[in-house]
């Protein structure tokens, strides 16, 4: 875990004071809402349908128990007793009073947290692999690079008024658990001749014009990464479109220029900025990386079998189910990665109560070397759990209503807040998620891995383009209408979902989902996932099943 030094702390403390001053100017009337808006947006404070919403940054989704408890404290003291974990690995609170926002930031600063750049047309929270540091397939822990980039991008004087928001993801495995190529910049750390460097993808994104980022550069060494990003951003800041908000993301620039021409411009710019000496010395990445050193994994004690696995008692069928669905292998023998589902059937995807947040913090402290992760699928991970502790962890989770065994199943739905909260939404997302989860309750495992994602408007915060099944809510002459999409993926087999045809009512969309999954069950071959069957068969038979 990264720990602030006096510089980091001073910067965050200064931000609290600055925002307190800005809020006071707003409350006194010295600032109009128009003037205040860009200031509050730089601090993650949105004006929603019913109240202010505050989005708190969880850099690369990593938290310790002290920070997690603070999130619970804020939910309890300033909100209605719960928080909402987001697809950007952040948390947001939906019922915030403007006058209290500075106090929340001050509370966050006591545990090295903030809301800096969680909104606005700037570089947003850096996202990463929720299994970083625990995954067997990573070439290195991506988080030191993410932290280096976080610091570089914080209050970047040149890139705080970009044409649009800007999202960067860093991963270090061939398996993509962070939808890396659907980011403005996706970075995959790779090893070449013993050196770790970055493969750079630029110009991915969802929204109304979804695009998969093309590769721009095959290898950027650590010594050049910040100057290279500076060049990527400068070309965008200078040439990205500003005449049309819907064409202002970097994906449009890269698409219009062509990846090759964009890459050439970046290379030229990089020659100029590299010479300025703006890259930190290797010692800075080393300083950060030292704080992410692996915990003292200690596999002695319980007996392990030849594969390094504890022989667990699977006699409780519910526990066995949870082991199969929510527990994944760890790089250290005797340990496992636990994914906690925030997707109970009938619940709001990504919501957790203050008590649940506290409980997850307690479990992290006791069983996971004090670490938690937020996932882009709106779940929580305990990254380093001893296999011999799994039953105790599961029992505690179950008692708190957090024991759902549905990770990556059809009820593990990503959904945006939708029209229940969001002023941009055209349709509600949460009730559709609840109805689908309820319809398939008890049958999820039969359908296997099936990623279903729901957005309540074309901005695609619910990642519907990347869903094996995607649902997009639109407004059709004043009535909520839901379009069905099939075949998307945000993983290493990245693809964009395609729309099936005319949309449906709220109940009709649930029926349509059942029709396509029924077809899958009759046509699947071998171990095929829904996505594989769709890719093999193509859209036609699914269309026939829905509309025929």
């Amino acid at each position, binding site marked *: 875990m990264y720990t602030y030094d006096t510089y980091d702390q*001073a910067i965050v403390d200064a931000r609290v*004071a600055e925002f307190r001053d800005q809020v006071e100017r707003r409350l006194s009337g010295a600032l109009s809402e128009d003037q205040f808006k*860009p200031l509050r947006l730089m601090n993650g404070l949105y004006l929603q349908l019913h109240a202010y919403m505050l989005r708190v940054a969880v850099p690369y989704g990593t938290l310790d128990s002290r920070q997690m408890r603070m999130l619970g404290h804020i939910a309890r003291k300033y909100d209605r007793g719960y928080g909402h974990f987001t697809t950007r690995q952040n948390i947001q609170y939906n019922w915030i009073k403007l006058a209290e926002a500075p106090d929340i930031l001050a509370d966050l600063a006591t545990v090295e947290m903030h809301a800096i750049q969680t909104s606005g047309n700037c570089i947003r929270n850096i996202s990463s692999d929720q299994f970083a540091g625990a995954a067997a397939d990573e070439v290195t822990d991506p988080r030191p690079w993410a932290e280096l980039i976080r610091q570089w991008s914080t209050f970047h004087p*040149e890139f*705080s008024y970009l044409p649009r928001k800007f999202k960067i993801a860093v991963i270090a495995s061939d398996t993509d658990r962070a939808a890396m190529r659907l980011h403005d910049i996706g970075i995959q750390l790779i090893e070449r001749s013993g050196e770790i460097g970055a493969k750079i993808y630029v110009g991915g994104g969802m929204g109304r014009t979804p695009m998969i980022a093309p590769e721009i550069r095959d290898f950027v060494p650590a010594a050049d990464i910040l100057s290279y990003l500076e060049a990527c951003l400068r070309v965008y800041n*200078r040439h990205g479109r500003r005449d049309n908000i819907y064409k202002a993301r970097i994906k449009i620039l890269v698409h219009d220029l062509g990846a090759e021409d964009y890459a050439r411009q970046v290379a030229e710019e990089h020659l100029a900025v590299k010479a300025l000496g703006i890259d930190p010395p290797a*010692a800075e990445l080393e300083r950060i990386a030292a704080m992410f050193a692996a915990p003292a994994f200690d596999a002695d004690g319980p007996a392990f079998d030849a594969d390094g696995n504890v022989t667990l008692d699977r006699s409780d069928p519910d526990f066995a189910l949870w082991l199969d669905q929510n527990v994944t292998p760890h790089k250290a023998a005797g340990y496992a990665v636990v994914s906690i589902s925030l997707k109970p059937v009938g619940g709001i995807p990504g919501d957790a109560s203050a008590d649940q947040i506290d409980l997850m913090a307690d479990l992290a402290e006791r069983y996971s070397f004090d670490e938690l992760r937020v996932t882009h699928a709106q779940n929580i991970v305990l990254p380093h759990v001893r296999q011999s502790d799994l039953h105790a962890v599961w029992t505690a989770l179950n008692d708190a209503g957090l024991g759902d065994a549905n990770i990556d199943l059809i009820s593990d739905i990503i959904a945006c807040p939708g029209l229940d909260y969001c002023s941009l939404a055209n349709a509600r997302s949460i009730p559709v998620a609840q109805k689908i989860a309820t319809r398939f309750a008890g049958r999820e495992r039969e359908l296997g891995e099936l990623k279903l994602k729901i957005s309540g408007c074309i901005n695609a915060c619910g990642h519907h383009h990347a869903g094996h099944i995607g649902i997009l809510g639109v407004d059709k002459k004043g009535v909520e209408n839901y379009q069905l999409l099939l075949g998307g993926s945000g993983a290493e087999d990245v693809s964009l979902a395609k729309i099936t045809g005319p949309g449906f009512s709220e109940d009709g969309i649930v029926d349509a989902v059942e029709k396509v999954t029924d077809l899958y069950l009759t046509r699947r071959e071998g171990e095929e996932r829904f996505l594989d069957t769709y890719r093999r068969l193509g859209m036609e038979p699914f269309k026939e099943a829905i509309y025929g």
Partner: protein
Amino acid sequence: MGDLLHNRDDAPLEEPAVTLDAFLGGQDDATAVRLEAGDDARALIAHIDRLKLIEIAFPSFRDGRGYSAARILREAGYDGELRAQGDVLVDQIPFMRRCGFDSFAPEAPVDEAVLAASLARYENVYQPAADAAVPVWKLRHG
């Protein structure tokens, strides 16, 4: 107030600035040029030794192209007056200063006390830019 909006030893240049097109199209004896937000600052680099004022337009506070233009000119060695003109908000001036602007002509009046406080607020920065501020990684490693 004059100091906060003009942190140079010389007085603001009063000479009317010519457009980039006019400058490149023949009026190259001018010593003051105005760049619109979409103009290519690099087109001026060959001439920066002769220029005393470059004014960069901010048609809207949301239009951040001028921040890059300013850095490009400073990185190329321009040391004359670099003025931000237009929809320049008080809370933006610290970032503009970091990008190399040393003169400001906001369309709407700027609150002096607010500007003074915001310029003094951050002691440290995370990244080098066109000003003298030393990034924390340098302070950490010498």
